[in-house]
């Protein structure tokens, strides 16, 4: 069974969002999503200063087999993008919740958590799929 850390929130399309002490939100994809994708070969992420929107595509990730959209669990502005992933996507596979983070976002509003699933709900989604 895939790990679902309790310290963050989830989108049904398998992205996570974690709030830092400074109010900045880090986003990435879940272990379940990473294992579904298999071997990764390419990722495209937005740069600093670009806007992302809730449930809208913010980038693309490509496995040996197919291209998949990355959907944002939050609306806001990119303040940092994990540039090391452009060279090697292994951290996404090996450590999707830590080293495999993708973007740091300054949220557009404070209510962003209301639209997301809590860990228990996301876990039951995984169990029922």
């Amino acid at each position, binding site marked *: 069974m895939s790990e679902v850390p309790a310290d963050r929130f989830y989108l049904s399309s398998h992205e996570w969002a974690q709030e830092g002490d400074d109010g900045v939100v880090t986003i990435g994809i879940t272990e379940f999503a990473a294992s579904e994708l*298999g*071997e990764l*070969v*390419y990722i495209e992420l937005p740069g600093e200063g670009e806007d992302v929107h809730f449930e809208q595509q913010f980038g693309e990730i*490509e496995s*040996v*087999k197919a*291209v998949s959209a990355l959907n944002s669990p939050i609306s806001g502005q990119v303040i940092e993008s994990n540039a090391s992933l452009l060279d090697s996507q292994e951290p996404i596979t090996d450590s999707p919740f830590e080293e495999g983070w993708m973007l740091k976002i300054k949220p557009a509003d404070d209510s962003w958590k209301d639209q997301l699933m809590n860990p228990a709900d996301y876990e039951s989604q995984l169990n029922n799929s």
Partner: protein
Amino acid sequence: MKKTVLNSAHQRHGARLVEFGGFEMPVWYSALTEEHHTVRKQAGVFDLCHMGRFEVVGDDPVTALDKVLTRDVSSMKKGQVCYSLVCQEDGGILDDILVYRLPDRWWLVVNAGNRDKLLPWFEEKLEGAHIVDHSESLAMVALQGPLAVGLLAPHIERPKGRSLETLGYYRVGAATVNLTGTPLQGWISRTGYTGEDGFEIYVDSEHAEAVFDALVDLSEDVHPCGLGCRDTLRLEAGMPLYGHELSEQIDPISAGLEFGVGLHKTTPFIGQSALQEIESRGPQRRMRGFTVDGRRPARQGAAILHEGKVVGEVTSGSPSPTLGVAIACGYVDSGIPEDASLQVDLGRQTPDLKPHPLPFYRRETEKV
């Protein structure tokens, strides 16, 4: 979604299952790249039960087939296997198939996704013959890779004491399969869709799972392999895939499959005059192979550009595990020279396409 008789075997072997051609099939068991290398260097086992296995029954199956297939069926010898296209009147491809001339009967193996389309089509077009669909009752599994012949030979008995080694490339014969503790009567052909030496084995479906497991257990060097690596293996080997390189909108001449068309065979076949015309005026587009600059593979549907204008379209693309670069093939307008500067439209990027001869990969001994 339909399942093959090997579905529970796939689950036991830890497969990730996806839809392909209407069937739930393994895309990989461990990892695509690893399975790809297994087939290139060792041997891999594939479930091919999703493909259609049709027997052609009638008073004169040869003439009936000759009228609907592009290949000159009448010249096939007993024990021979031939690649052929099934075309429409306008030359568009309905399917690409293998034709098996067994000592006393004729078989066709067709693509999974085209089974339901072809059955009524053959019923209508075959004159004096009809199809008996054995797809459910007869299983088909493959062992592909350089170790296949050596590992399999001790377990296969052929008529008149012939060894498996003497079964030639694209040949088929009766076989007693001694893999499961009980001798099984079936067929074996030296065919495949990987670019490696290998075999396809046909036994009654009730024994499919035992045969599949026994093949996997032949050696530590053998692993079950999914459709993911079957796709990268066939792409490297320059073999077309229906729904990618081939469709009802594409003819075999444009696809570079002239070898599979008896353009001037004496029995007229469906699509013959259209194909003769395409051949004489030259196709408007042609299949070409490329390596893609940079890390990102080009996928089916990506536009091929020359001086900013669309001059073609990618039909298949993937990282090539053997070559270590991204490879692609696609159709390009015939007027564009081989050495023209081409790019591929991947959204934010338009990396260069470098021409690469097809196939991308050829094993050292092509003919046995």
